[in-house]
């Protein structure tokens, strides 16, 4: 058996049947055999400084410059808004354990007098913007909670979120007692509970 195989191998290749003459194939350009370091750099530079690359880079730059210029142009440097600081009356205007909605419609803040946050009677001002998507929650005094109509987030009187999709408590804005005995809200200051900013004395007025 083995001998027969060997014999067959030694006998040489079988004669191939004659095929009809094939048309000559067009010669393809021979590919570069090996990439040397030098030719790699040449290749890189030929790609980066080729008219192709230059043209696309120029086009992209022009487009980018125009887009950035348009975006910057559309970013106004001035907005017309009411001043961020305003007086909201005396402490005596705010009875204990109540949420005042006096400035909600005009200025978007509640003034809250409660001792539920840390046991101390405090007066603070909550921003009437839901921390979920910025709708205006309403104060439901019967259920003692702020409830957002957009996606149902609920907050305790302290401003802490407890239901719905809101990810964090309502924000406090600055509230100070001026020398004239009047309270002043400063909406340019914001205090976030989750960052520990509610301990900042500018965020509340302690009641005696």
């Amino acid at each position: 058996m083995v001998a027969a195989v060997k014999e067959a191998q030694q006998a040489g290749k079988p004669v191939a049947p004659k095929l009809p003459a094939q048309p000559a194939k067009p010669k393809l350009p021979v590919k570069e055999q090996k990439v040397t370091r030098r030719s790699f750099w040449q290749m890189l530079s030929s790609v980066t400084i080729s008219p192709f690359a230059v043209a696309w880079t120029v086009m992209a730059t022009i487009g980018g410059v125009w887009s950035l210029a348009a975006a910057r142009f559309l970013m106004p440097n001035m907005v017309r808004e009411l001043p961020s600081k305003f007086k909201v009356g005396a402490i005596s205007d705010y009875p204990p354990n109540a949420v005042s909605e006096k400035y909600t419609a005009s200025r978007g803040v509640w003034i809250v007098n409660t001792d539920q946050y840390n046991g101390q009677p405090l007066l603070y001002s909550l921003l009437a913007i839901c921390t979920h998507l910025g709708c205006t929650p309403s104060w439901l005094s019967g259920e003692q909670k702020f409830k957002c109509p957009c996606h149902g987030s609920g907050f305790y009187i302290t401003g802490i979120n407890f239901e719905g999709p809101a990810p964090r408590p309502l924000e406090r804005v600055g509230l100070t007692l001026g020398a004239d005995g009047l309270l002043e809200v400063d909406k340019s200051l914001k205090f976030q509970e989750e960052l520990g900013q509610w301990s900042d004395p500018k965020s509340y007025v302690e009641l005696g």
Partner: protein
Amino acid sequence: MNPHPDLTAGVIRGLGWLYLLLALANVYWSVRSFKKDGYYERLFGIDHVPKAFGWAAYASILLLFACAHLVFSSSADDFMIRLPEFFKSNVDILIANPISYFVISIVIFVAMVVWRNWWVEPTIAWILFNMSVLFLALSMTDYDFRQIVGKPDNVPIVAMLYLVGFFTWLYFYKCRDNDRRLANGLPPAEKELSETVLTWPDLVYSEMICMVLLTVVLILWGVALPAPLEEPASAVKTPNPSKAPWYFLGLQEMLVYFDPWMAGVVLPTVILGGLMAIPYIDFNKIGNGYYVYEKRKFAVLTFLFGFLPLWVAMIVLGTFIRGPNWNMFGLYEYWDVHKLEVLNNVNLSDMFWLDLMRQPLPRPDSTAAWYVQLVTILQREWLGLVLIVLYLVALPPIMALTVFRKFFARMGFLRFMVLANLILMMWSLPLKMALRWSLNLKYIVAIPEFFFNI
């Protein structure tokens, strides 16, 4: 006088016209059935009864219904044909619950695919259509249903539901034929229409007819329904509920389950990117320009799943069922602002630290440097972060080695990774929903300090 009457004289008359239309459509169907459907060999002892007899009987009942509505002239409160209360309350219970709503939409989706060759039968499809119209007509006898469905801005959604239903039917109907042809080695039916005709007149005239019809529809629609105009805008009076335009209500529904940066920015971007990527990740050469189901099952099912239960059904949910405070209300339920729904959700980190480890949550020291705080936060949220990374990074290779083995071999690394991540993103919505319903899970990763919640 009831301020919220279920029925008024106007509603009764309107429904009368609707029943009349439906009756006429069924007269047509009886004729069609008489020509096509054949006979029952023996029915109630009578030989050779045409099947069309049933349709004719049904059409006459509808006609009686229409007459009863159109000639009714006494007090609307005495009118008998209305939806029974037990039906309303049971439907409300099923619909006004996110779990059963979503489960029902998935069940309908699965049934639609599994029994596709059964329900595309024209007779079955006609029965389904009749049932849906009857359901709509009878539901119109309910005050609250009418308030929501009859809102001018919501009417297009009802129209869209019928259009989507009809075109889905058309697709499966054509697929049944083409699937058989392809299985027998024949070309799809559309290939047989490859004979060319001149644009003028064939195409140009059908375009003109289409334009005329559309103009008529738009004018009738504009006359029948006035465009809504509510009170002048007020920046301080938030209406309850506040809804985005109806075509974005699918996204607004996602906001219940995801943080705004995910639901409002990342997921829409992924949806659009994913749509644009479809031609580049679908390597299947079959079905280029004709209807076919069997040979591109995966692509079609994925798309249908994204379009029907995750987009259209979510729009229906957001429009018709989400009411004040974004609570869910049944179709026949009064939109009560004070309806209470307990939504006490907890984060994964709370579950891990409080329930499992019985420790307080690690709380970052607000006076320390930011990187010290970051370490504490990462320690607090490590479980969620690990899970997310596993989901997005470890799952694709596992998928490549198991279920999607053949896909991976044919698609190559990059394409497969894009596909796998798109699918995982799509499934993240039902997954997050299921977690919310079963575990009251709010966020898997909750880092409000950096507005990074997932």
